[in-house]
């Protein structure tokens, strides 16, 4: 469970999140809102990439301020632009990066690399240069690079924004099949239809916290 307790977040004089308190217990949580509404900052709080100016964020009881490293092991994060997330020149090398950081032995890294490549039909791309992958393949690689670290939670910040419809569906299907708790920030409302809970952000506040049907209707009515 992720608990957010009276969290306020400010960058200098600019407050981006105001007094947010909630618990995330559902397996699929969607986050929507206009650009600049604070949803990406909120997502970054969940794995300790950003620390609250006041209040606390706890992941399975671990405070992100005191236990940042442990929290990041539990909460994987996928960014909007996979080009900024893939840090090694080839597919297999990039997949190994996170596992090496966890201190996994070489044979386990090789086994998990093979398994994830097979899972996403990318075995032929094992030694392919990352910069030559298609947009969809890059995003699947970015997601795979996080999944091989076995996080309990996966936070994704607009992972389909740069993708075409076909690749968006591919990524959506990949997310749908995950056992992990998924917290998805997106502008693509169709992705959230089958989710358990959707939060609507506006100017640093949560203005709706509902089932997808109600939250999406609220968003279309008030924010569009």
């Amino acid at each position, binding site marked *: 469970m992720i608990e957010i307790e009276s969290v306020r977040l400010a960058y200098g004089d600019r407050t981006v999140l105001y007094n947010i308190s909630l618990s995330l217990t559902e397996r699929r949580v969607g986050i929507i809102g206009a650009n600049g509404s604070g949803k990406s900052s909120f997502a970054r709080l969940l794995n300790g990439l950003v620390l609250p100016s006041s209040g606390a964020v706890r992941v399975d009881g671990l405070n992100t301020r005191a236990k940042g490293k442990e929290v990041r092991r539990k909460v994987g994060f996928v960014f909007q632009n996979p*080009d900024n997330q893939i840090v090694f020149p080839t597919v297999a090398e990039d997949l190994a990066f996170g596992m090496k950081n966890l201190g996994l032995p070489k044979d386990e890294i090789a086994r998990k690399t093979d398994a994830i490549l097979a899972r996403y039909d990318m075995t032929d791309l094992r030694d392919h240069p990352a910069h030559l992958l298609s947009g969809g393949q890059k995003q699947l690689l970015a997601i795979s690079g996080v999944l091989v670290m076995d996080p309990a939670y996966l936070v994704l910040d607009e992972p389909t924004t740069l993708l075409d419809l076909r690749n968006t569906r591919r990524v959506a299907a990949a997310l749908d099949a995950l056992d992990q708790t998924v917290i998805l920030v997106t502008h693509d409302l169709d992705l959230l239809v089958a989710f358990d809970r959707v939060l609507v952000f506006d100017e640093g506040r949560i203005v709706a916290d509902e089932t997808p049907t109600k939250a999406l209707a609220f968003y279309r009515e008030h924010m569009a």
Partner: protein
Amino acid sequence: MLDLYRPGASPLHRLSPGPKLLAMMLCGTALFLVESLPLVAAALILTLGLYRLAGLPLRLAAAQLRPLAVILVIFFALQYWLSGPLLAAFVVTRLAALILLASLVTLTTRASDMIDTITAALALLRPLGVNPAKVGLAISLALRFIPVLGQITAEVREAQKTRGLERSVIATALPVAIRTLKMADDISDAIEARGYDPRA
């Protein structure tokens, strides 16, 4: 090294990067000590033989020389003019052998294996304050993001071209610098999110 590696199972592919890098350094030094055209020509032929041993086609060897063809031609012309055809052939043959040898190492070695080896070697410098993991990550980031920076530059130049600013260096350099700095922030976040510990 950017995307040179060609997967394979040859003896050269299986050889760990340390001996390959050492052999490359020794052979490179030896090539500079040799003053005979037949010997450097033999070294070039031997290097091409190693390409075949690695299961790499000779056209791939030619492709390694192509980007430097202009330099090789200029060197040849200068040496021909200054010292005659024999020395010109000697200089260009030696340079070609060196380029092919270095390329052979990168063609048969994964970047990550190369970086691991360099990182392990740098551990000797730890008492001097060198952090081998940081150096290794810096090398891999450079290899990964050189093509990305090229792509960003091409995009910005295209955008400026539509505004008639293709000749303005500032109109290209400034947006590229801003995008690069923003990208650097995101990459830093991404590395942190994937459990990288700079103190390790």
